[in-house]
C-alpha cells in the first residue's frame, strides 16, 4: 500500500515538472538565432513566399501564443511539431531514434556494472592489494578520458588495424536487411524476426560503442561500489559476522546486498545523463540516435527536434527515477519499513 501512495505522490509532481522543463526550454530554444523559413526555402526565396511560410508555421504570432499552441498540440494530439530537416513529425523521428540510443546506453551501463561492481567489491575487501590500487587508477582515469576520443582509439585498433569489427557507420551493415520494427532495439527485433544475419550485424556494430560507454561509466560505478562497500564492511553487523567466524563469501554477500541501493542510484543518474550525454559517441559511430538528432537540430536552427528531445529525455529520466524508487522498495526493507 505504501508503494502506491508513494508513487501517487511522485506522480503529482511529474506534471508541473514537465511543464517547467518545456516552458524553460521553449523560450530558451526560441532564442537561437536563425530564421527557419529562410533555412527551409534557401537564400533565393522571395520575401512573399517567406512571409507565407512564416504565417503557416505560426512564426508571426507572439512567443506566448506560439507556446500555447505548442502545449495544446502536445497535450491534445501528442504532437511535437515537424522537423524541417527530415520533413517528418518529430514524434515519429524520436520513436525511431530513441530506441537506438536506449539500446546503446542500456548495454553500455550493463557492461559498466559488470566492470565496476566486481572491481569495487574486490577493492573494498582487499584494501591494500594490487586490485585496490588498480581500482584507484581506473576510477580516476575513466573520469579523465574523453569518451569520443576513446571511441576513436578503439576504432583504430579494432577496425583499422585488426579488422575485427565492422566500420563505424551506423547500426547495421549497408546490405543487411533490417528486421521489422517492434521495439526499435535491433538485437531484440532481429531475434523476434529470427533474422540471424541482422542479429550478427547489429551485435558487431554495437561492440565498440558499448565498450566505450562501458569503460567510461565503469569508473563512477566502481567508485560508488567501493566507497559504500567500505562503509558496510566497517559497520557493526559485518564485524559481528566476522567475529562469529562466518565465511568471507557470506560477509561480502551481506555487505553487497546493503550497498545495492547506492549502486542503483549511481546507475540511474548515469542513465539519465547518458540519454543526452552519449551524443558524442553516437556521432563518432554515425549511430543516428536521439542525441545526434537534437544536436543537428540546434546546429541548424531546427527547434522542434530539440524541444522534442528535451521532452523525451525528461520523461524518460522521470520514468527511470520512478523505476529506481520501485527497486528501492524491492531491495531495501528500510524504505518499506
Amino acid at each position, binding site marked *: 500500500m505504501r508503494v502506491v501512495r508513494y508513487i501517487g505522490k511522485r506522480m503529482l509532481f511529474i506534471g508541473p*515538472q514537465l511543464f*517547467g*522543463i518545456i516552458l*524553460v*526550454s521553449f523560450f*530558451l*530554444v526560441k*532564442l*537561437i*538565432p536563425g530564421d527557419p523559413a529562410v533555412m527551409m526555402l534557401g537564400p533565393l526565396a522571395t520575401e512573399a513566399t517567406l512571409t507565407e511560410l512564416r504565417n503557416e508555421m505560426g512564426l508571426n504570432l507572439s512567443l506566448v501564443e506560439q507556446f500555447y499552441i505548442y502545449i495544446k498540440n502536445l497535450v491534445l494530439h501528442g504532437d511535437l511539431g515537424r522537423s524541417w530537416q527530415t520533413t517528418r513529425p518529430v514524434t515519429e523521428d524520436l520513436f525511431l531514434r530513441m530506441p537506438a540510443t536506449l539500446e546503446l546506453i542500456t548495454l553500455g551501463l550493463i557492461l559498466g556494472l559488470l566492470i565496476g561492481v566486481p572491481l569495487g567489491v574486490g577493492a573494498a575487501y582487499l584494501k591494500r592489494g594490487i586490485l585496490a590500487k588498480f581500482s*584507484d587508477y581506473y576510477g*580516476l*582515469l575513466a*573520469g*579523465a*578520458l*574523453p569518451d*569520443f*576520443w*576513446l571511441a*576513436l*582509439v578503439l*576504432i*583504430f585498433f579494432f*577496425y*583499422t*588495424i585488426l579488422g575485427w569489427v565492422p*566500420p*563505424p557507420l551506423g547500426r547495421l551493415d549497408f546490405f543487411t536487411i533490417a528486421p521489422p520494427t517492434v521495439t526499435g532495439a535491433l538485437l531484440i527485433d532481429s531475434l523476434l524476426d529470427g533474422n540471424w544475419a541482422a542479429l550478427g550485424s547489429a551485435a558487431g556494430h554495437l561492440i565498440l560503442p558499448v565498450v566505450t560507454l562501458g569503460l567510461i561509466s565503469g569508473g563512477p560505478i566502481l567508485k560508488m561500489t567501493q566507497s559504500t562497500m567500505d562503509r558496510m564492511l566497517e559497520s557493526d553487523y559485518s564485524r559481528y559476522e566476522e567475529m562469529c567466524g562466518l565465511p568471507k563469501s557470506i560477509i561480502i554477500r551481506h555487505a553487497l546486498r546493503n550497498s545495492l541501493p547506492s549502486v542503483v542510484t549511481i546507475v540511474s543518474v548515469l542513465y539519465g*545523463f547518458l*540519454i*543526452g*550525454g552519449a*551524443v*558524442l559517441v553516437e*556521432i*563518432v559511430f554515425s549511430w543516428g540516435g536521439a*542525441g545526434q538528432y*537534437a*544536436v543537428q537540430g*540546434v*546546429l541548424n*536552427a531546427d527547434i522542434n527536434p*530539440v524541444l522534442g*528531445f*528535451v521532452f523525451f*529525455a*525528461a520523461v524518460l*529520466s522521470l520514468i527511470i527515477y520512478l523505476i529506481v524508487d520501485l527497486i528501492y522498495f524491492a531491495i531495501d526493507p528500510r524504505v518499506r519499513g
Partner: protein
Amino acid sequence: MSNISAGHHPRTTSERVQAFLRALRYLLDVLRARPLFAVGYGIVVGVVVLAIFAPLIAPYPPETANPVDFLQPPSWRHLLGTDATGMDIFTRIIYAPRIDLTIAIAGTAISAIVGSLIGATVGYYQEVGGVPSFFSGFVMRSADVLQAFPVFVFAIALVAIFGQSLQSIIAAIAFLNIPIYLRLMRSQVMSIRRMRFVEASYVAGTPDRYIILRHVIPNSMAPVLAQLSVNIGWSVLLTAGLSFVGAGVVAPTPEWGSMIAMGFQNIITGQWWPSVFPGIALAVTVFGFALVGASIEVLADPARRRAMAGTMRQRRTKEA
C-alpha cells in the same frame, strides 16, 4: 587557513606566516604520503607553464597550414607528426591549454562565485520562514529544472544562442555549473548556520550580510575548493566535446577537442597521430586536475589531514 574568529582579533604578520608555513608542511606531508597527488600538482603546473611559454617552446607557428608536409608521421622534424593541413601537432598541443584552460578556469570560477553566493544566501534564509524561505524554495526548484536538462544539448543550445565565441562558451560552462555550487554551498551553510559561533554572532547583533560574508562563507569553502579543481577538468572535457561537434572553438585555433575532430577521418585510414596525441594531452590534464581536487579534499578534512601527517611524522621519527 580560515579562522572562526578572523574578524574579531586581527592576527599579526608573524602569526600569519606561521599559519602559512604550517599549511605548507601539511601539504608536503600529504604529498609524501600519497605520491600520486604530487603527480597531479606536477601535471597542473606543467600544463600551465607549457601554455605560458608555448611561443618560446613551440618549433612551428600554431595556425599556419603547410600543405607540403601534410599527415607526416611523428619524426625528429615533427615530434608528434602533422595533421591533414600540415600543421605541427606538438606545437598545437602546447598552445591548446591557452584556450582550453582559459575557458575552463574562467567558466568554473564564475560559476563558483555566483553559485556560492546564491547558495550561501539561500541556505542562510531557508529556515527563517516567510518570504525569504519561499524565495529560497523557488531558487532550489529552478535549479532542479535547470539540472533536468540534458547537459550536452543544453550547452550547445547556449552557445548557439550567445553566438560562437570564447565568451559564450565560458558563459555556457558557467551557467551549467552554477547549480552544483549552489547546492554544495547551501548544504554547507545550513549546517554551519546552526553552530554556536554563528548563533552567538547573531545574538550579538551582527548584521546578516556580515555574518554570511565573514563567518559562514569562509568556513564552508573547503568542499567548494575541492569541487573547483575537479570541475575545471570536467569543463575542459566539455569544451573539447563542444568543439568536437563544431559548436565550440573553431578550426585553426589550437584546441584539443577540435584537433581530435580534425583527425577523425584520418584515424580510419590509419593515420592515428592527429587524434591520439591531443586526446592524451586532454586526458592527462583532466587527470591532473582530478588529483589536485582529491588532495584538497584530504587537506580540507582535518581528521584525514592529521591522520596522514601523523603517519608521516611517525615514519620520520622512526627513520631518525
